[in-house]
């Protein structure tokens, strides 16, 4: 479906926020994503998967400019239309726990921002931890922040910031680079904590057909698009990521 862009602006360094008219025709859950066609042409050829950052009166997607597709997307103006398929994927399974933590690395905060709204809607208590390289990249307005160079908040990685808070009563919702998720996974295993991770992968179709986005799990190859993007961390073979 073609939806109208309400706003497309830089919110930090190379991070953009695009707000899109929500036609109110469907519901969405935190952790789900859209496949976005950047333009009407064959270049870029494939759609881009983007997690939903906010979903109510408008749809917000926060994205980082990393390549040609996202560079083109960043040039889109208010009033233009973009073609989106979705919402796709399973999303986070929302369950209560004594201690809920949202942990994001870099642009990985995007689906957690939506999750925050859902948790608040259910009056679940939670704490948030986000890591960025530098102050310039910080694009969240809530939670505890770590930067690698110490230019904002805690100096160090988000793992260093959060690791002592994790115990066996913790349920983590995480998204970020696989190195960060893999380290978190080690800590969760050690402390016997629960964790749902939202993964990123290159996708061609986003609807379970191309089999391009698979990851290796204890139960064989699994598609990030329609068997994910949210997985139980214990299922993933982290050494293969």
């Amino acid at each position, binding site marked *: 479906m073609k939806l109208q862009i309400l706003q497309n602006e830089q919110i930090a360094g190379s991070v953009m926020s695009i707000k899109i008219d929500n036609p109110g025709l469907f519901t969405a859950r935190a952790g789900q994503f859209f496949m976005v*066609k950047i333009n009407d042409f*064959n*270049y*870029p*050829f*494939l*759609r881009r998967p983007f997690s939903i950052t906010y979903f109510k009166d408008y749809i917000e997607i926060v994205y980082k400019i990393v390549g040609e597709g996202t560079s083109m997307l960043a040039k889109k103006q208010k009033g233009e239309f973009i073609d989106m*398929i979705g919402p796709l994927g399973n999303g986070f399974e929302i369950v209560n726990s004594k201690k809920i933590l949202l942990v994001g690395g870099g642009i990985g905060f995007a689906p957690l921002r939506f999750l925050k709204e859902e948790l608040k809607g259910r009056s679940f208590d939670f704490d948030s931890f986000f890591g960025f390289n530098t102050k310039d990249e910080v694009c969240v307005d809530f939670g505890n922040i770590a930067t690698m160079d110490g230019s904002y908040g805690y100096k160090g990685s988000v793992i260093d910031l959060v690791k002592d808070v994790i115990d066996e009563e913790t349920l983590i919702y995480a998204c970020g680079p696989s190195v960060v998720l893999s380290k978190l996974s080690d800590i969760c295993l050690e402390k016997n904590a629960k964790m749902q991770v939202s993964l990123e*992968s*290159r*996708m*061609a*179709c986003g*609807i*379970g*057909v*191309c*089999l*391009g*986005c*698979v*990851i*290796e799990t204890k139960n*064989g*190859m699994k598609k990030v698009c329609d068997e994910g993007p949210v997985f139980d961390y214990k299922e993933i073979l982290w050494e*293969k990521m």
Partner: protein
Amino acid sequence: MGKNVNLAVKLGNIIFKNPILTASGTFGYGLEYQKYMDLNELGGFIVKGLSLSEKQGNKPPRIIETPCGMLNAIGLQNVGVDKFIAEKLPYINNLNTHIIANIYGTKDEEFIEITQRLNKEEIISAIEVNVSCPNVAEGGSLFGKNPDNVFKLTSSIKQNTDKPVIVKLTPNVTDITLIAQAAKDAKADAVSLINTITGMVIDTKTKKPYLDNKTGGLSGAAIYPVGVRMVYEVFENVDIPIIGVGGIYNADVALQYIMAGASLIEIGSANFTQPDISIDIIKGIRRYLADENIESVSNLVGIAHSSG
């Protein structure tokens, strides 16, 4: 506009309501697309390549985008022929369209066994034989690059089924007409071409090929002129029905394939970009015929060869 145009085409004893099929590997088992389109509007669809037993496929990364296309090395991951028959077919058996099974194996005996199992399934209209998939080290390309192997394999498959047999050809050969001729000599009912073109992308950060399989098959809009050229060559040299495939993303490219000599066409990677793109292409062909005052799409097959 509004004039009646005839999109129906015949292949062997099968009548397709229009020449649009969807290509194996880009359309799952059909089920996945029901949400996005009415499958009954298609001439037919070709299911994901089936092997004798379930296959896990290659390790990731399996895909990388390229200019106007993509490179893939999925490694033919599929549920296997038995699971397909037991678990997938029941969900697509009441459709008013043709279902074509694409099959592959690592040796003749496997192809034959899969053929025998599918032959019992009335709902399967035809069998497309993948002799060309370049992704699995021990598979596909070995058969498809050698005319003698293609002849032998196609002959044995023909002996084991009364369904039409389509041989899907690889473009990664010196002269595709020799392979098409071998398929014809073995009494194949049609050839489909082209499968993907073998390519490689290197990640300059890691200084290694991006795909775990190193090479992959190039598909998408970028490759269509290669496909059109090869269909043109086969039409010129071999008297066998042709199904054109490779980079078709709109009605104009579909028509180019038909004019080069294809009786039917398959839509591949474009399904990923727009799930219902085949419907747009059918409409576009219908519009073209009406605008050009051409009664039947069959009148266009191979028209680019005429000297007049």
